[in-house]
């Protein structure tokens, strides 16, 4: 294959991967920006999305129902968890959050195993995007093109949501100075619940979209949470643009790393992260050093 077409198709491939990583990382970073907590259960919500997506396809025959249902279920559980447990912990140090969400990871993972079983479940690619197209005479799955496009659309949607809506304004304000927002008469608790739900929902959205590529399996959560952490750390905790930048960066390292250095592909992502942290301890666009 010629070099240029190869680079272009692999770049498209990396962009579709970046979209999935972005869905995963952006929720985590938004939650951290507002609540100063690290949500260890984030990967499990991603996994939950994939399984809900599977059931939606199975019982309704429509992938798109799953795409709506997955984020709703995950968001609902997220809001319930935040109001039920996390809210009582705001006066404690950050390690308490890390550990309670780790506990949620165990519980939710086990519930998923009980409901859906241990087998990896194949989710069919939605028919509209099932085929392949030829780019530069090379076959390329349409679904990956769709993923890349979905990433762009969702990124723009979140950006507009943060910039143009009242809730988005409150979220940005709370991340800067929660006390002042509270003093101005806004119920900060509601903002926190909302952002936790939105973050979990975004993770599940990524899970539903990833399911046709990787199948829904119990191993998803572990890989996803590590990827999400890497994205958030590289991008800078709490930075929306940072998570977008990091997702693209990591996806390119993963895709091209797997091609050129197959033995070191797994390590490449962590090396990139260490490199970024040594140079900029707060992440690429993070505020805190």
């Amino acid at each position: 294959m010629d070099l240029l077409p190869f680079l272009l198709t692999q770049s498209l491939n990396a962009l579709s991967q970046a979209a999935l990583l972005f869905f995963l990382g952006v929720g985590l970073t938004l939650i951290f920006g507002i609540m100063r907590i690290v949500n260890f259960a984030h990967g499990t919500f991603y996994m939950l999305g994939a399984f809900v997506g599977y059931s939606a396809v199975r019982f309704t025959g429509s992938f798109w129902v799953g795409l709506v249902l997955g984020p709703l279920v995950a968001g609902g559980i997220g809001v319930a968890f935040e109001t039920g447990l996390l809210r009582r912990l705001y006066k404690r140090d950050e390690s308490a959050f890390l550990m309670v969400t780790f506990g949620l990871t165990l519980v939710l993972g086990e519930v998923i195993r009980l409901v859906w079983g241990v087998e990896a479940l194949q989710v069919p690619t939605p028919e509209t995007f099932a085929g392949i197209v030829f780019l530069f005479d090379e076959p390329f799955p349409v679904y990956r093109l769709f993923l890349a496009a979905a990433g762009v659309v969702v990124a723009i949607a979140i950006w507009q949501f943060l910039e143009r809506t009242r809730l988005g304004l409150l979220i940005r304000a709370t991340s800067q100075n929660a006390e002042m927002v509270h003093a101005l008469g806004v119920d900060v608790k509601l903002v926190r619940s909302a952002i936790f739900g939105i973050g979990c929902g975004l993770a599940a959205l990524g899970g539903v979209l990833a399911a046709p590529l990787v199948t829904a399996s119990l191993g998803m959560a572990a890989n996803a949470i590590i990827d999400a952490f890497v994205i958030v750390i590289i991008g800078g905790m709490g930075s929306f643009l940072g998570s977008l930048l990091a997702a693209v960066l990591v996806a390119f390292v993963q895709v091209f790393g797997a091609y050129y250095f197959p033995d070191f592909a797994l390590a490449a992502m962590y090396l990139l992260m260490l490199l970024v942290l040594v140079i900029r301890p707060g992440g690429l666009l993070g505020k805190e050093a």
Partner: protein
Amino acid sequence: MPLFALATAALVAAPLMLPMFAMTLLTEALILGLLAMSLDLMVGYTRLISFGHAAAYGLGAYTCGNLLLHTTLPLPFAVLAASLLTGVVAIGVAWVCTMAKGVSFSMLTLAFAQLLYAVAFKWTSVTGASDGLAGIPRRAGPFGITVFEGKTGFYYLVLACLLGSFLFCRALVNAPFGAVLRGIRENEAKTLSLGYNTRLYKIAVVALSFALGGLAGALYAPFAGFANTELLFWLFSGQVLIMVIVGGQGTLLGPILGAAFFMLLEHVLSAYTESWALVFGLIFIGFVMFVPQGIWGLVTRTRRARA
């Protein structure tokens, strides 16, 4: 401490009273207790929340396994060498990780552990990749001592390591060194302004913690006869952290109890239900929410209330 003497006496006498399978469980509990206690130096005394303590365990286990498989080093020396190597590697790790603070520190430790996990999967000649190292022997010696080959003798070796490490850690945290660690935990900026090079102290405590965690891993390899990538997995790091918190951070003895509690609970629950992780997760959440001082805190509070 009459309670401590009593517990030690019970542990020494345990092989006379307990059946074989219970001894195996107890040995593993003591090894995990040593690992949890080593993490407590970082988490409980210095507020350095490590999410990568499996790295210490795995490093110790793989090093000791290789020494026992490929050299003629006697068992106690192999264990000691593995522990030392883990501590030395930790100096480098700590040097990088202490550039960050708080959550970033935790994430960096996680990244290092995962890097090691990734390496263990690829470096087949040393780690056996996904198969791991199998058939790790408990070699006799030194000086023709064969007692560590048997299960009971090995149990006493583990017990001796745990007791020695505990006494060392207790002396350490009661020494001026420990006071500086607590200073870092409560207010690092203040400790720094008092003239202590806090970063050096942090690197030192990570190295010590890793050396003891490596000791635990080095004991695990000949105990189980194998070492695999599971030992390096991030979920295991999380479990060790659970042991520390549930047992009671910053108490040294608490995390050992936490490890024993974890082992016992896993053993009992898995006999009744396949979903032991569900029950375990709920218990853990309950502890973080309602008993932040852990099992050890409950024990001492009851004793104080009685007195």
